[in-house]
């Protein structure tokens, strides 16, 4: 970034331009939010209204009351699935990335390459074999199937991100811990992980978000609407009710609540994850 801070007219000009661009970019979100509070009748008005003239919260409330399409249930399913996938990804990826950063063991390069390649994998390659596998494991149509499958997105990403964090921790810190009587395990758990904590948070966030956004696994491995994640719920709903936009937009808003919360409270981790994850492979 330019080191000199812009001041005066230039500052105002650039700030204005950037805000206009932001408004255009985020318009779809604004529009969805507005629509979710309109009545179905108002949605069809021409010219469209820029804010709900009649505030309608039924699109949200109806989901709880009637229950035939309970989005809060799908929300809960998504939450369980994403948290499960996140837990697996973090627990497995943290030690793995430490190993890659610190030790030159047999097969290190091949494994690293393996993690890189899985990031390029299209879901369609895994769907049918996993489908057959989960049927054989009697896990088809359970949360477990989606959790196990979603974790495979988070693990390689987390390993590749975290290895940079562990590699940046000075070796001396670890050696000092050994001198003070730590074993490898206790040094790893009590010294290194706390130091690499920002990286661990990035991995947790992204593993959660990847699982939260997944449609293919949740839709293919879970059959009952009762157990399906919110993305599959939305897709189903679109198939059945087509253009009931008041409900659909409300559904969309509920689905992005966690994304918004994560964004508000953990923005710096997201930017760090996007840049590190992509540039370093």
């Amino acid at each position: 970034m330019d080191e000199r801070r812009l001041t005066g007219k230039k500052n105002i000009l650039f700030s204005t331009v950037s805000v206009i661009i932001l408004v255009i970019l985020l318009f779809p979100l604004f529009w969805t939010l507005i629509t979710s509070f309109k009545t179905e009748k108002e949605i069809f008005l021409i010219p469209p209204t820029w804010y709900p003239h009649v505030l309608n919260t039924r699109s949200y409330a109806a989901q709880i009351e009637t229950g035939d399409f309970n989005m809060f249930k799908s929300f809960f399913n998504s939450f369980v699935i994403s948290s499960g996938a996140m837990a697996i990804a973090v627990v497995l990826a943290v030690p793995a990335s430490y190993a890659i950063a610190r030790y030159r063991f047999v097969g290190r390069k091949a494994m690293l390459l393996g993690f890189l390649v899985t990031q390029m994998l299209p879901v369609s390659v895994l769907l049918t074999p996993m489908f057959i596998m989960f049927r054989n494991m009697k896990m088809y149509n359970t949360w477990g199937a989606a959790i196990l499958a979603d974790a495979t997105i988070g693990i390689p990403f987390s390993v590749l991100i975290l290895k940079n964090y562990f590699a940046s921790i000075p070796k001396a810190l670890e050696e000092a811990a050994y001198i003070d009587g730590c074993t490898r395990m206790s040094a790893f758990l009590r010294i290194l992980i706390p130091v690499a904590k920002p990286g661990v948070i990035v991995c947790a966030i992204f593993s959660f978000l990847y699982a939260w956004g997944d449609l293919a696994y949740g839709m293919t491995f879970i059959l009952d609407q009762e157990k399906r994640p919110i993305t599959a719920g939305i897709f189903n709903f679109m198939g059945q009710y087509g253009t009931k936009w008041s409900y659909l937009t409300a559904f969309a808003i509920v689905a992005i609540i966690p994304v918004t919360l994560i964004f508000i409270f953990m923005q710096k981790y997201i930017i760090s994850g996007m840049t590190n994850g992509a540039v370093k492979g």
Partner: protein
Amino acid sequence: MKRIRNFFRYDNIGLLFILPAFCYMMFFVGYPIISNIILSAQNVTVKNLVKGQKEFIGLENYITLFGDDVFRKALLNTLTFTVACLVFQFLIGFLLALLFNKNFRLAKPVRGLTMIPWMMPMTVTALMFKFMFSTDVGIINYILRSAGFIKENIEWLTTPGTAMIAVVAANVWIGIPFNTILISTGLTTIPQELYESASVDGANGWQKLTRITLPLLRPTIESVLVLGFIYTFKVYDLVYVMTEGGPVNSTHLLSTYSYKLSFDMFQYSKGSSVANILFLILLLVGILYLKITMQGEED
């Protein structure tokens, strides 16, 4: 026992840390990749998926695919979709990165907020764009009509050519933040002094862009484009939710066609052949990418 302990004494102790993750990935990713290859060489439909004889038919699935009009269409669509998305998201992302690189007061917070589209579940993005592109209630038709560009509402998602425009637009929206943030990061690595001495030598803005920024940004641009290619080429949810590959297969991508073959038409072997072709293309591009980025890195 002693030999085992000696093996793990030094660097190989790393294996103990990595094996859980590695085994997990071998079981849930490695094994499925192999079984998908085997599946594509068989003749598996809904009848013999779980039980029954699976006939080995070699490359027959692949050969029939290349005679399949929908497959050829999907391959072409995937390329069109990817190239169109890359061009627009790169150009817009690049311009935004240049803008946010200026040190004005709102630069950082606004840049942060532009990241939101990238984090959204693709299903939600697809829904939002489906709504905006819908014929009668769609805000896009309304805006175009009031601006005088069109007289009649366009049936975006049910007309072949325009459906592709709509899915590209949705995907560009997701891709812009990714391009912006990576190019922004790349820009910060260019030493400020270069621009200062160029100014002293009387270079104008355009010259600085083409003689300093672009050449020095080349590694970043390469990464952004290759990664963008990989991410875009395998997009699935977005298009599946918006159009399911329709109308008349005009937005079918390799990914959506593969899904349709396997889980709508229950021709599992054919579906997995399409998936393998998709993977093979990505793998080739990926190897190219690794070659570029691994140069100069010790490992």
